[in-house]
C-alpha cells in the first residue's frame, strides 16, 4: 500500500465534508453468529466514523450485515450473535467496556433506534402515551427541563407532528396508520435529544409520500437538534437525498466508504458501480435495468478471497486468493476494498504525477 504517512488509517476519520467533532467511531468490528453449522461472520472488520450532525448511509442487500452493524453499536445483537472483536467508541467511551446498567442509561437517552416495520415496532397492548412516556420515566435526567412526563411526551409528539396528540395519548398502536406509527417510533428515538439515531430502513415499509415525509422529519431533527443519523437502507435514491457519507456493505464487509458525492460521481468498487448502474435513470429508456448476475454469497461458506469475486465483472486472479485490504480514498477517511480499484488508483496517481497536475488520487 502506497498510502502517504500523513493519511489516517482508513475509516478512522469521516469522509463527509465539514469538521464537527467525532461522535461515533467503529473500528474493526466483528460480530459473528454462532450457529450449529459454525460461526457466521455477519459483520467482519467494519470500520467507519460518524461526526456530530452527520448522516451516514449504510447500503447493502439483505444479509449484508447492515442491521447487525447497527445493533452491535447498541449492543442489542440477537442471539446467537455476539460481538467478537473491535471497538465501538461513542462520545469517547468504549461501549464494549460498559456494564449492562450503563448501556441502559445510554440507550434511549443518548442513542435512539427506529426500526423498519412500523406495524410491529410498537407494543400492541400498551397505549402510545405509556410507550413514549417510558422513555422519560427511565431517563429523568434527559427529560427536557421543566417538563412533566406527560408534557415531554406531548412536546415530542407535536415535534414529530402527530395531530391532536393530547387526545391520542390513550390510544393503542392499532389506531395509528403506518406512517403515524413510524412518527411515534421516531418520537421514542428522539424524545431524550440523543446524539445518535440509528434508523434501520425506517422508510422501506412506507409508501412513497409517507416516505418523503419521514425523511423530511429526520432531516429536520438533524438540523434543529444536531443529531447524527446512521441511516441503513438499500435505497440509493434515499441515500442521495439525505446522506453526507456512504458505506457500501457486501457480505459483512464495508467494500467502499466515502462522501456521498464521490460515491455517486466516482464509484471505485465494482459492486458500488453495479449498484449504481441498476438504478433507473431519468430520461433514458432501457428495455431492462441492468442487474448484478448471481446471488449474494452464503456467509457460512464464503470463498477464500473477495466475497464479490464470483459475481464481479472485473475479477482478477488475486481476488480469488486473498481478501483485499482497505485502500484509502481521498484525503479523509474513505476507503475501498478491491485489488482492481487499487490498481486503477495507482495508475491514476502515476498519470497525475507524470502530467505534474494536482491529481487528488481519488
Amino acid at each position, binding site marked *: 500500500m502506497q498510502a502517504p504517512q500523513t493519511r489516517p488509517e482508513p475509516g478512522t476519520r469521516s469522509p463527509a465534508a465539514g469538521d464537527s467533532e467525532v461522535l461515533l467511531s467503529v473500528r474493526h468490528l466483528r460480530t459473528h453468529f454462532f450457529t450449529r453449522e459454525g460461526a457466521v461472520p455477519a459483520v467482519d472488520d467494519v470500520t467507519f466514523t460518524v461526526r456530530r450532525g452527520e448522516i451516514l448511509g449504510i447500503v447493502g442487500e439483505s444479509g449484508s450485515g447492515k442491521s447487525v452493524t447497527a445493533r452491535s453499536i447498541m449492543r442489542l445483537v440477537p442471539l446467537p450473535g455476539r460481538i467478537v472483536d473491535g471497538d465501538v467508541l461513542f462520545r469517547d467511551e468504549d461501549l464494549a467496556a460498559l456494564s449492562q446498567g450503563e448501556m*441502559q442509561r445510554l440507550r434511549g437517552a443518548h442513542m*435512539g433506534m427506529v426500526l423498519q*416495520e412500523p406495524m410491529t415496532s410498537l407494543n*400492541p*397492548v*400498551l397505549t402510545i402515551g405509556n410507550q413514549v412516556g417510558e*422513555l422519560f420515566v427511565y431517563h429523568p435526567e434527559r427529560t427536557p427541563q421543566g417538563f412533566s412526563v406527560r408534557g415531554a411526551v406531548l412536546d415530542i409528539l407535536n415535534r414529530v407532528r402527530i395531530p391532536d396528540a393530547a387526545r391520542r395519548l390513550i390510544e*393503542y398502536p*392499532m389506531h395509528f396508520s403506518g406512517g403515524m406509527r413510524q412518527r411515534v417510533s421516531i418520537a421514542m428515538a428522539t424524545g431524550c435529544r440523543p446524539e445518535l439515531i440509528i434508523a434501520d430502513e425506517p422508510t422501506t415499509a412506507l409508501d412513497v409520500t409517507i416516505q418523503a415525509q419521514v425523511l423530511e422529519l429526520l432531516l429536520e431533527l438533524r438540523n434543529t437538534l444536531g443529531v447524527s443519523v446512521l441511516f441503513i437502507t438499500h435505497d440509493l435514491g434515499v441515500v442521495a437525498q439525505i446522506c453526507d457519507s456512504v458505506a457500501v456493505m457486501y457480505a459483512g464487509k464495508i467494500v467502499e466508504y466515502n462522501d456521498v458525492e464521490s460515491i455517486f460521481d466516482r464509484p471505485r468498487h465494482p459492486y458500488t458501480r453495479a449498484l449504481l448502474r441498476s438504478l433507473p435513470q431519468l430520461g433514458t429508456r432501457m428495455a431492462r435495468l441492468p442487474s448484478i448476475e448471481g446471488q449474494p454469497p452464503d456467509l457460512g461458506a464464503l470463498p477464500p478471497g473477495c466475497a464479490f469475486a464470483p459475481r464481479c465483472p472485473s475479477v482478477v486472479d488475486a481476488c480469488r486468493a486473498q481478501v483485499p485490504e482497505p485502500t484509502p480514498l481521498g484525503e479523509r477517511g474513505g476507503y475501498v476494498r478491491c485489488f482492481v480499484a487499487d490498481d486503477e488508483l495507482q495508475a491514476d496517481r502515476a498519470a497525475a504525477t507524470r502530467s505534474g497536475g494536482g491529481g487528488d488520487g481519488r
Partner: protein
Amino acid sequence: MRRYLLLRLLQSLLTILLVVMVVFLIARIAGDPVTLLVTFDASQSDINRLKQELGLADPLPQQFVRFLTDAARGDFGISFRTNRPAMQEVLSRVPASAQLAGFALLISLAISIPLGVLAAVTRGSLVDVIARFFALVGQAAPNFWVGLMLIFLFSVRFGWFPTGGRGGLDHMFLPALTLGTSASASLTRLTRSAMLDVINSDFVTMARAKGLPRRTVIFKHALRNALIPVVTILGVRVGVLISGSVIVETIFAWPGVGRLIIQAINVSDFPVVQAAITLTATSIVLANFLTDIVYMFIDPRIRYVRS
C-alpha cells in the same frame, strides 16, 4: 365491546343447550331406564303403567322439551341410588371438586409461568433444559401413574401425606399436585415458546433500545403479550381440571363430582350422570367465557376491534 360480550354469551348458551341435547339422547339410546326400576317379574302392563307415569311413552320431542324445562329449573330427576334429587346430589360434591381444581390451578400457575419465563430468557441454560425436560415428562406421564407414584412415595414410603379422602390441607396436597403437574407441564412449554416468540419481536427490541431495565422489558412488554396464548390454553385447562378430576378423584378417594360420576355410572344411576355431565359441561363453557373476558383486559385489540 358489549356486543362482543353478548355474542359470546349467546354462543355459550347455545353450547350448553347442545350438550344437554346430547346428554338427553345418549340416555335414551343407552337403554330403557324402566327395566332398571322394576323387578324382573314385573308384568308388561306394570311396565307400561310406569312408562306412562314417567312420561317415557310420550314422543321424543315432547320428552325433550319436558327434560329441558325441568333441567332449566335444575330438576334432573331423582337418583335411583339415594332417592334424593340428582342435582342436589351433584351440587353437594361441587365444593370438594372446586377446592381441588382451584388448588391444582394455583400450583400449576405458580410453577409454569415463572419457569416458562425463566426458561425463555435464559434460553439454552441449565434452567431451560430442566424446564423442557419437566414439560416433556409432565405431559407424557398419565395422571393415574403420577398419582400412584406420589402415593407410593409420599404416603406409603415416607408417610408424610394421607393416601386419600378429604380432610385438611395435607389430604389435598397429593391430588392437587397430581392434577397440577400435568397442567403446569403444558403451560410451562406454552409460556416458554410464547415468550421466545415475543422476545424476538420488534417492539421488545424497541423497548430495549429505549434503555428500559431488563425486568421492565420482560414483564411489562414481553410477558403481557406472551400471556395471550397462555390464557387461551388456561381457559381450556380449567375445564379439563374440573372434568379431569374423574381419574384423580377416584385414585385419591376424593369425594368430588368426578368420583360421583364413576359411582353413578357403575350403578346406572342415569339422573345423577346426566346432572353431573350437564354441570361439568356448563362449567367448562363458563370457564371459556371468563377467558374471553380476561382476554379483553389483556389485549386492547379485542376490546376495540370487535365492538
